[in-house]
């Protein structure tokens, strides 16, 4: 059979499906793995409406019987590498290699050494283990190529490849690194991080992190049974690999949660609202940062959720009944909103909703309410009896289905503990790691702070008190585990905090922008330029000025393009007179003003003599009086019997005489009435006006 340098139609379908499954656009910026195992294989086969054995059969038929068994795929790599168009055609081989690795350490293969990769590959593909072992190293080119395709060619738009050869598994480490932790389990890690009181960017070692992951996996069975079994059984190299994966996931974690298919996930919270008459319950979906403005759940839900509060969508149009309390999942492209069934629902006060909102975990510094289902009620009562300092209840809320009991005004004791997994949400949170809290971040999600407004360091360890921290190599003492970094007067730049075995970095900057870089308008009041009508009732997101419609005018703060092409012009004149005329060079261009005193607040400005500029007296005598809709040429000011004339601009002598007849008369009369008032030095220019005025008077 000739070697199949081009993939068959069936292989092409599998390539597309593998890419869609493991490297789709939803994973942009997130770590991605080619994490194929039997379950994943079955699910992809279902989607393709084919047999899960097809992929392995195709690869098996393409293994060369003589020489390098992977020769066909190496040639494919060469061919694909010429143009690098579309997905790599060698992907099926790598997927099958990962599939073999996914069987390592599983119970059903217990008769094979947990670290024995080649026997599993032989069972799968029929490839003699000796031949495989001899040539397996060459596949490193394909792994590197896959990494380059995802990382460089696609610039991480389908995820950041986590492809590497761990030093403790030579050659076979490539596929093992992909599948040791199933995708579904990896998507649960953010839940583990949150449940462990971690926040993105927290400083802790690989081992500290893995201890939390292990504790979470063992106590609550949050991972798949296979994932849980893997974590429990892992030792040595496998455990090292798990530690590395958990750490990479944590490093890249942005605080978002994921559903089992990798969609960004927001929780649907249960809100409890009481007024004088009744208590009501409703479902409130969160709207984490980056979620769409409106959420349109996939079929069969026929509604649209609009944002209603700062971090939430509007309430779900569902009653809070037994069916919904068993779980809700709403999906929309790469996003999901979920309510997870639970026998215990703790609530905390929420100012945004002016009521109570369900929380994932209680804390000891504020009051809580707790809903408890009958199926765990007795155990929960026993726990509460020892874990709280105050509590009222129980009551059976009328608005909920049977079986639920509500306890109110609960204050939990710090340090309360329970071994019952379902009650772990009632164990108060404790800060058990080192965090940077507050400060003025110059970029959302980054650790760049405004100089002088650095955050507070809170450092604690579960087994001892941290007393000091090295800041850029200099020792600073903590006060009860806390240090306000803004008191250290750090110079702008990179900074390093070292305490115990934890290192934390952040940077400070005074300014991130060149001032010459103009501010772009992104929120504005929009008006229809033609009819002046508003487009919204307030200011709205407008994107940038480049998208402004020609028939729209925008106002943003004190700016709009209208304000910068004004129809009125300012004139300056000395203050203190009784009456003012401003004259333009065109008869009819005349404005008349009365004396205008300065406003009180301005009069109150006191500038110390030492700070006054040399021409201060002159400045004090100057007053800006008004705006006129022509270019002013002269200002005539009466001060009692005296007339003072101020020449404003070098007006053209070319005087036109059309315009409003009354205004023309007024203009010429004003000029003639003041014909002798102009100082000698301006007489020549003034005479031009006087002559025109005389001419006009004759008509």
């Amino acid at each position, binding site marked *: 059979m000739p070697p199949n340098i081009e993939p068959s139609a069936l292989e092409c379908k599998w390539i597309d499906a593998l890419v869609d499954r493991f490297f789709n656009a939803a994973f942009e910026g997130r770590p991605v793995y080619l994490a194929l195992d039997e379950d994943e294989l079955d699910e992809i086969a279902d989607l393709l409406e084919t047999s899960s054995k097809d992929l392995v059969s195709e690869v098996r038929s393409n293994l060369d019987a003589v020489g390098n068994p992977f020769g066909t795929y190496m040639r494919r790599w060469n061919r694909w590498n010429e143009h690098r168009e579309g997905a790599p055609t060698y992907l099926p081989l790598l997927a099958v290699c990962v599939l073999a690795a996914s069987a390592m350490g599983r119970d059903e293969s217990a008769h094979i050494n947990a670290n024995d990769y080649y026997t599993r590959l032989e069972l799968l593909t029929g490839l003699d283990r000796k031949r495989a072992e001899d040539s397996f190293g060459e596949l490193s080119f394909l792994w590197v190529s896959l990494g380059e395709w995802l990382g460089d060619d696609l610039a991480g738009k389908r995820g950041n490849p986590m492809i590497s050869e761990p030093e403790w598994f030579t050659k076979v480490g490539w596929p093992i690194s992909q599948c040791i932790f199933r995708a579904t389990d990896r998507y649960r890690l953010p839940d583990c991080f949150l449940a462990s009181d971690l926040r993105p960017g927290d400083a802790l070692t690989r081992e500290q992190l893995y201890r939390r992951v292990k504790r979470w996996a063992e106590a609550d069975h949050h991972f798949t049974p296979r994932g849980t079994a893997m974590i429990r059984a892992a030792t040595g190299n496998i455990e090292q690999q798990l530690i590395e994966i958990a750490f990479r996931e944590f490093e890249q974690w942005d605080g978002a949660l994921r559903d089992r298919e990798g969609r960004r996930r927001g929780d649907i919270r249960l809100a409890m609202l009481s007024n004088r008459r009744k208590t009501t319950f409703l479902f409130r979906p969160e709207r984490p940062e980056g979620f769409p403005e409106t959420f349109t759940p996939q079929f069969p839900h026929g509604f649209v959720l609009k*944002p209603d509060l*700062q971090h939430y969508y509007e309430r779900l149009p569902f009653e809070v009944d037994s069916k919904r309390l068993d779980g809700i999942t709403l999906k929309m492209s790469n996003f999901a909103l979920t309510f997870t069934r639970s026998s215990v629902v703790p609530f905390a006060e929420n100012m945004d*909703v002016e009521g109570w909102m369900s929380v994932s975990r209680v804390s000891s510094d504020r009051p809580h309410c707790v809903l408890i289902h009958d199926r765990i009620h007795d155990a929960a009562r026993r726990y509460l009896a020892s874990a709280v300092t105050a509590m009222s209840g129980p009551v059976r809320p009328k608005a909920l289905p049977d079986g639920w009991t509500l306890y109110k005004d609960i204050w939990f004791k710090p340090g309360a503990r329970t071994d019952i997994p379902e009650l772990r949400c009632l164990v108060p949170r404790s800060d058990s790691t080192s965090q940077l809290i507050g400060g003025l971040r110059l970029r959302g999600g980054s650790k760049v702070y405004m100089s002088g407004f650095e955050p507070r360091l809170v450092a604690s360890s579960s087994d001892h008190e941290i007393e000091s921290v090295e800041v850029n190599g200099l020792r600073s003492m903590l006060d009860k585990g806390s240090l306000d970094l803004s008191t250290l007067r750090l110079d702008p730049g990179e900074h390093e905090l070292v305490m115990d075995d934890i290192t934390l970095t952040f940077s400070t900057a005074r300014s991130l922008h060149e001032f010459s870089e103009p501010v772009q308008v992104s929120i504005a009041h929009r008006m229809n330029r033609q009819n002046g009508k508003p487009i919204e009732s307030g200011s709205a997101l407008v994107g940038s000025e480049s998208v402004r419609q020609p028939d729209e005018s925008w106002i943003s703060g*004190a700016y709009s393009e209208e304000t910068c092409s004004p129809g009125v012009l300012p004139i300056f004149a000395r203050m203190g007179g009784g009456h003012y005329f401003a004259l333009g060079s065109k008869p009819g261009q005349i404005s008349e003003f009365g004396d205008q005193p300065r*406003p009180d607040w301005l009069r109150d400005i006191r500038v110390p003599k030492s700070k006054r500029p040399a021409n201060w007296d002159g400045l004090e005598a100057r007053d800006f009086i008004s705006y006129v809709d022509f270019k002013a040429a002269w200002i005539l000011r009466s001060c009692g019997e005296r007339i003072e004339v101020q020449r404003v601009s070098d007006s053209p002598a070319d005087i036109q005489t059309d315009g409003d007849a009354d205004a023309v008369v007024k203009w010429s009369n004003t000029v003639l009435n003041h014909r002798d008032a102009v100082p000698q030095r301006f007489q020549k220019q003034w005479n031009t006006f006087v002559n025109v005025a005389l001419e006009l008077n004759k008509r």
Partner: protein
Amino acid sequence: MNVGLDYDVLLAYLSERRTGTWAAFKDAVDWLNGVEARNREIAWIAARRLEDLGHIEVNWEGGKSWAICPTVVTLLSRSGGRALVTGSRPADFYDVGSSSGILEDAAEELDLYVECVPQFRAPTTLLVQLNNFDQADELAGHLGARCTFNVSEDIASQLPRLVDYLDVGTRRELPIGFEAEKFNSESLEFEIVDETESTGLYRTRTYGDVIHALNDVKSSSATTDPVHWNRLPREYAVYEIFRWEGQRVLCFDYEKMCLWVPKDAGLPTLHSRCATLCSGRLPEGDPEFTHPTESSWRCIRYENVPDRIASRIAESLSQEMIEVNAQ
């Protein structure tokens, strides 16, 4: 002068950050309030103050967000030839303590003088003494800022009519199942009611939001619209009630050029900004002022408002100004 929250720092921070979510704004205000500050500022009040002064815009609808506004140099009438600098003021722009920064450098180069006027619960007012308008233009050029002769005049010329705002309200019922309150145009307060059938302005406090809606069942536009509820920002809805009832609430002193507005019937954002930027100063409570319509109304006073701007604001809100002669 600033108690608790340092508005100059807040403005510098917002200018550096440029845009953000409401959560980011609130976090910044909370952080700057400090843990021990007795006089903590509330985030939305801080935002409204900065909006009035033309420093930021806030999108209050839906997923709230904010954005800094372009830096603008604008002249102030009756100010001794001073220009106001508003909008974005990043960290290096001007340090009030040391009188240094980009603005100071530019002013020195043009032989101009920068004056800082502290303002209670607001960023320091920055004024520049000018000799002629061309200097404002030059200053703006040095700063990479925009320049306008008179921003209040320009905003005033663009203020839409009240009825046009009614057209962009949301035709949607008042949420049911919540306690409803009705606006009383005499007390300027909302009072709890049992029914919402009659014409008027109602509000409900839902979960985290206060929704204002006009029941305009008798209005001409409602006759063709099956939904006679119109959800609007409070300020427009209140002035629409005044229009229905012929209630005059805006008072103006032509001589002093001051505009008084009942505190509980505050101007909409653009209108308030228009009046505020006549002086660059936020309106202040005026306990001495007695409103001619109802003496119990507490009023705030906008200063240095030219009569044509006050008239334009009143006209836009379908108000007829009450001429007063304050002592």
